[in-house]
């Protein structure tokens, strides 16, 4: 800890002098992509930089590591809960090339940005416990055919539905958008469903909207970015996806107030019995099942993979990855710590305290675990077929553009065709 400070200040003051004298240089870093990653060296104390973990599960893992490695202790640096702020602090740390942060807990969608800027180190694949991990999660931690991060926990979309009402109406959980509309029509005929709305997701103007739209696009057979990483939003498939949302709002299948829904507002509406179907993350399963009277739907709901255009839909992949900061010291220790942290034993141990989904498919089928977290088999289906969100290097700007366009369409400011055409131009500008 102590010897780090002068180092950091040296970098800072060097940077300040650079700005003052206005010598703006900083040539390209040598590109050695696709070659074998350099060996990570150095052992000693490191830091783990992460969002807070209220369950206390990650803390236990760190304590277990520290007990076994007194010479290479890990100190937890806790960042604010807000994901934007976490990203900004990590980027600032990288830009001043500070060694204060060693192991970074990255949202899956930041991984490309951090890798492309070489803020994180490429990792040696053969030393990582990637066997047995869900392919989609491993894939989401790669960039330019190199492994830059290791999956920590994963997340995928689930369709929550009111099993009691579906049964009363004699219909099944839907696998397509059309089936969902028909199921709603049948359910809303029931006297006990009076005043309910059919479906909602996260349609407020934030990351949730990007998630919902890119899921709809993938579920209609399209993609926001093609296989070569070029934007492809002005296609018939993405138009179908956007129309699913826009028509939903117009027909009343999606209630008007859903344009203000983030995760929590949607959960509240479903929990109060206002919705037949809701797209949300697994974390709401526990509050919905609460027996203390806070949830009106406890024991009256079920989960399924989200529906799509012609068959089951394609979820977005959420979750977190661990990576090593390029400007850090003691990278060999960091690699060992990551390997330990994401090992199957530790992932399993953390499940006792935390409901974050592990990245090993075996754990999703473990009887003991499934009896405690019954949504896991469905989530595995969802995650296994999941698509990562756009692997855009300028992810922040890309997701902002997507949200602007989709929000303009669902609030009727623009036609779907206009908004997609405009979005395509904006994303093309960002891509090169």
């Amino acid at each position, binding site marked *: 800890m102590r010897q780090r400070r002068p180092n950091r200040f040296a970098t800072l003051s060097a940077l300040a002098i650079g*700005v*003052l004298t*206005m010598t*703006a*240089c*900083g*040539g*390209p*870093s040598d*590109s050695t*992509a*696709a070659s074998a990653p350099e060996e990570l060296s150095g052992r000693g104390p490191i830091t783990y930089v992460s969002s807070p973990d209220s369950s206390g599960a990650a803390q236990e893992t760190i304590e277990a590591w520290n007990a076994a490695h007194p010479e290479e202790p890990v100190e937890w640096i806790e960042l604010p809960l807000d994901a*934007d702020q976490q990203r*900004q602090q990590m*980027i600032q740390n990288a830009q001043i090339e500070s060694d204060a942060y060693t192991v970074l807990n990255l949202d899956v969608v930041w991984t490309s940005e951090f890798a*492309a*800027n*070489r803020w994180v180190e490429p990792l040696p694949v053969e030393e990582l416990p990637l066997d047995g991990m869900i392919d989609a999660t491993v894939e989401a931690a790669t*960039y*330019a055919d190199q492994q830059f991060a290791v999956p920590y926990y994963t997340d995928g979309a689930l369709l929550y539905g009111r099993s009691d009402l579906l049964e009363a109406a004699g219909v099944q959980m839907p696998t397509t958008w059309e089936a969902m509309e028909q199921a709603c029509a049948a359910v809303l005929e029931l006297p006990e469903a009076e005043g309910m709305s059919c479906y909602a997701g996260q349609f*407020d*103007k*934030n990351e949730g909207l990007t998630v919902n739209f890119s899921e709809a696009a993938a579920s209609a057979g399209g993609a926001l970015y093609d296989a070569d*990483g070029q934007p492809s939003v002005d296609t018939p498939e993405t138009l179908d996806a956007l129309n699913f949302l826009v028509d939903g709002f117009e027909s009343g299948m999606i209630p*008007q*107030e859903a*344009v*203000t*829904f983030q995760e929590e*507002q949607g959960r*509240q*509406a479903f929990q*109060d019995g*206002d919705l037949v179907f809701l797209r949300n993350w697994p974390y709401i399963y526990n509050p919905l099942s609460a027996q203390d009277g806070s949830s009106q739907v406890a024991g009256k709901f079920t989960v399924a993979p989200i529906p799509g255009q012609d068959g089951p839909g394609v979820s977005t992949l959420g979750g977190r990855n661990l990576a090593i900061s390029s400007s850090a010291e003691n990278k060999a220790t960091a690699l060992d710590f990551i390997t330990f942290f994401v090992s199957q034993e530790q992932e399993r141990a953390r499940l006792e305290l935390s409901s974050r989904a592990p990245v090993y498919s075996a754990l999703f089928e473990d009887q003991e675990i499934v009896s405690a977290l019954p949504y896991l088999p469905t989530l595995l289906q969802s995650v296994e077929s999941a698509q990562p969100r756009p692997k855009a*290097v*300028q992810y*922040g*700007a890309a997701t*902002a553009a997507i*949200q*602007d366009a989709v929000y303009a369409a669902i*609030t009727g400011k623009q036609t779907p065709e206009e908004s997609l055409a405009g979005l395509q131009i904006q994303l093309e500008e960002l891509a*090169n």
Partner: protein
Amino acid sequence: MIFYPLLSAVGQSLYSAESRLDENGFVVDREVFVGLENYAEIFVGAQSERFYNALANTTFFTVVSVALETVIGVAFALMMNRAFRGRAFLRAAVLVPWAIPTAVSGLLWRWMFQADGIVNALSGSQVLWTAEGMAAQAAVIIAEVWKTSPFIGLLVLAGLQIIPEEVYEAAKLDGASAWKQFWAITLPLVKPALMVAVLFRLLDALRMFDLPFVLVGPRKESVETLSILAWDSANQLQYGAASAFSIVLLLYVSVIVYMFVRLLGADIFQSDATRPQSSRRRRAVSPAPRPAAHHQEETR
């Protein structure tokens, strides 16, 4: 300490981060000196539409909310200045909105303005306050006024308490109505305190950030202020553009405040000019002329 960040921001605003991807997909970026290009972008370039919208929002919020706060704050101060039971309690209670951190009150109002929140429940309507449009602007103004009226109220109250009672007694003897007393005595005498309060509020309101950000959300056209725009650019790592936005905001605030102080300053000097003549001794002899003199001044 004051000038370094300012100069550094000015310097930064002349640069732009130019990044491209090399053939392997890795970022090659450099800081390029672009001169005033960032400013040109803001005023006539690609950013201009967003900028003018944010400028209009900032101005609109400032004018409407500061006007409402002034009226409500003065009314509160007049009420609190009366002697009545529970006055101490009212004074303490009025401070609560001001004492709550803005981000927290933003959250509180967000819950109340939610689609299924208490505001819609009580009014029996289905207004989407936290989406876009007039309703979102109204929500921000309501929360802002609720939060900051106490500030004006308390500063004005402090001003009211130094007005000597005999001035009012003399006015009563002259048969001035309550309304006339307010216009001829209270307002002119409390004006310096009120103007300082309004000036502080103007400064604050022009930099408004947390309330619209928390209550309605970032990048919502109808409530985007200049501060939010600067934050958004910084968040996209466009520090040059973000600095340029901040400098423009600084200049805008300076102009508004300069104009305000000029208008108000002239006034203060005038009342100061009359004050030494009607010195304490003379006022003790005949307090009546002073408010009358002020009255003429105000209505001139």
